[in-house]
């Protein structure tokens, strides 16, 4: 018991203050692709079809970008550490229309999350899991992952939606009480990502018409990005 207290004392508080979502992001982080750094004519190098073949805008669809850097010069320098924001419409990932700045870290309200892995590689799950760690501690914003869809406000979907998870997705969504919404977390859930056009997947939530979706690309979206998107969901549900 004494050793536990001693270790706790020595570690101190590592959770950042309430206005901040998490630890500082290093400058080398692969947050988003910088359009001007993309090698001209690199569209063929993109494994997911996120780049346009012509026109002035190099990036056609942030919802397809897996941040691999194959379109960048050797060494793959050309990322900004800023994470991609959550988009209100699937189309906004193409036109780059980020939502108005969310109420970051604002206290008040709560949001109960049901997590559904629809074929993710596990990286998105780990980043959501990191939110529960003391470095982020999402419970301080009134957020929590619940054990039943009946208790949930938002369905967090990761992965490209596999054939086998399609039915589970529908049933989970039906079991949730209104008002409710979906957070498509990660590029796979937005568009299928690198798993697009497989016999076993359905290209993410792109064609899904079950209800309102917030779109968060990233491979994986870092914990701060997921937290910010969840807070945006909280605001949106509060308004409804």
């Amino acid at each position, binding site marked *: 018991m004494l050793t536990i207290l001693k270790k706790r004392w020595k570690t101190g508080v590592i959770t950042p203050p309430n206005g901040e979502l998490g630890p500082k992001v290093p400058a080398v982080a692969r947050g988003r692709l910088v359009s001007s750094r993309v090698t001209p004519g690199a569209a063929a190098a993109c*494994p997911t079809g996120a780049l346009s073949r012509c026109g002035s805008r190099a990036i056609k669809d942030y919802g397809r970008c897996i941040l691999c850097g194959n379109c960048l010069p050797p060494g793959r320098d050309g990322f900004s550490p800023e994470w991609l924001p959550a988009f209100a419409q699937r189309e906004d990932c193409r036109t780059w229309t980020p939502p108005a700045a969310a109420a970051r870290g604002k206290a008040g309200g709560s949001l109960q999350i049901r997590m559904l892995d629809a074929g*993710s590689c596990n990286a998105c799950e780990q980043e959501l899991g*990191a939110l529960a760690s003391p470095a982020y501690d999402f419970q301080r914003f009134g957020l929590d992952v619940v054990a039943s869809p009946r208790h949930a406000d938002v369905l967090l979907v990761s992965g490209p939606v596999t054939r086998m998870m399609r039915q589970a997705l529908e049933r989970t969504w039906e079991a949730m009480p209104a008002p409710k919404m979906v957070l498509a977390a990660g590029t796979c859930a937005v568009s299928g990502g690198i798993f697009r056009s*497989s016999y*076993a997947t359905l290209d993410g939530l792109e064609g899904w018409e079950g209800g309102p979706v917030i779109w968060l690309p990233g491979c994986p979206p870092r914990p701060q990005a997921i937290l910010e998107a969840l807070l945006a969901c909280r605001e949106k549900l509060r308004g409804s």
Partner: protein
Amino acid sequence: MNLIRVAKAEMLGVVRGIKERGGVLFTVCGSDERLWDHGFGLYYVFSLGKGGGFQTVATMVDAADAVFPSVTSVFEAAHWDEREIQDLLGLVPLGHLDPRPLVRPDDWPEGLFPLRKDFPAGERPPLVTSREYPFTPVGGEGVFQVPVGPVHAGIIESGHFRFHAVGERIISLEARLFYNHRGVEKLAEGREVEEAMFLVERICGSCSCSHAVAYAQALEELGSLQVPPRAAALRSTYLELERLYNHLNDVGAICAGTGFSFGAVHGSRLKEEVLALNERLTGHRYLFGTIVPGGLSREPFGLEGLAGDLAALREDWGETVAVLLDNESFRERLRDTGRLSREAARRLGVVGPAARASGVDRDLRRDHPYAAYGRLEVTVPVQQGGDVEARFLIRVKEIAATFALLEELLTDLPAGGIRVPLGELPPYTPTFGYTESPRGANVHFLLTAPGNRIYRHRVRSASFPNWAAVPFAVEGNMLPDFPLINKSFELCYACLDR
């Protein structure tokens, strides 16, 4: 590659001979070779133990007679591999004790095999209502059936568990997995080998680097390439960092499974510190985009100060684990829970920490060295208990060994280049690469087509043999202990399902 081609009818005899020489099943791959031959190629790769190398046995299955003798009577560990071949290639293993579907989705049409070359990539049969999966029936007075999943109560990947219990005692568990099957192997086909790397590192987010290195090594073996010493040392560094964050996570998860919040919170805190180190070094918390065939994509961003940070982390971890090891009520909770016998671990071909916790002394880093492990002193801890406590202790000891390896790697990091060109690879030539991931042997088997494109890619990760062993460790335990036992294996669904 040490490969012998045998006729289908001689297969079992040859395989039996390998078993007598102490061979262990390493991977299995089926491949549609009707393009240049008269049927399907079947490859069984065996490890011959420390210093013994590998032996591959290949046979041809005629398209007109699409059956083959199951090797499960000799190597039981091949049971899921052969069911997978049946599902995805349509070759029937004769004499297999459990020929039910394994990988294919429940609503998949009969007679359609996605890994055959005449199944076009991107084709999606129409969605229909799923058939009921034929679970093994369990009967008797007072037997309850408890279905769990595929969606779970927390942040857990998808899979279904069918328990049969009398009171709280589990009498059988059947795991129906492959809910996360994404068709990765088909998606890889036809891609250029460099581009396929982006797919490979997304097979699994928590052993991404292990997959990437195994895949790269398969190609390098095929092209007879030697990566520069600096690239080899940095690959080992990244692989050990991956082991470190996974083991810290798993120790925390075992604590969480017993409700010991001190260990759970410190585990997640320390894991986060390693993820931050990964990002500082490579720009990515899970090391995506770091490994390329032929070496590394770039020099690490910030090696300065890394050794000091790791030393501080080691001390921090030392203080944390001392509390866990000293806590008898916690240790007592792990003891005798979820025991996997040495005999079962051997029979089912269990790998990694789960095998070493059941007294099976195997580690690819020592037995078949790759990257920079050949010149390093790799300590391989072994426990005999086979219970949750043994799997916990294995990880604790491996964390200590990993810190030592990292220190050794960083004090003596070779200078020089980090990448060599891959060149033109010989087409249709089988090759494989492997790593000891945080969960055990991770094997990538490949055939390439002309123009350095993937022809066939089979991935057998550590979770593949280990998932089949979990039900054996669970039987006889209490239902509420299942999460703890499951966490002590900490297997990956994404790795298994692909």
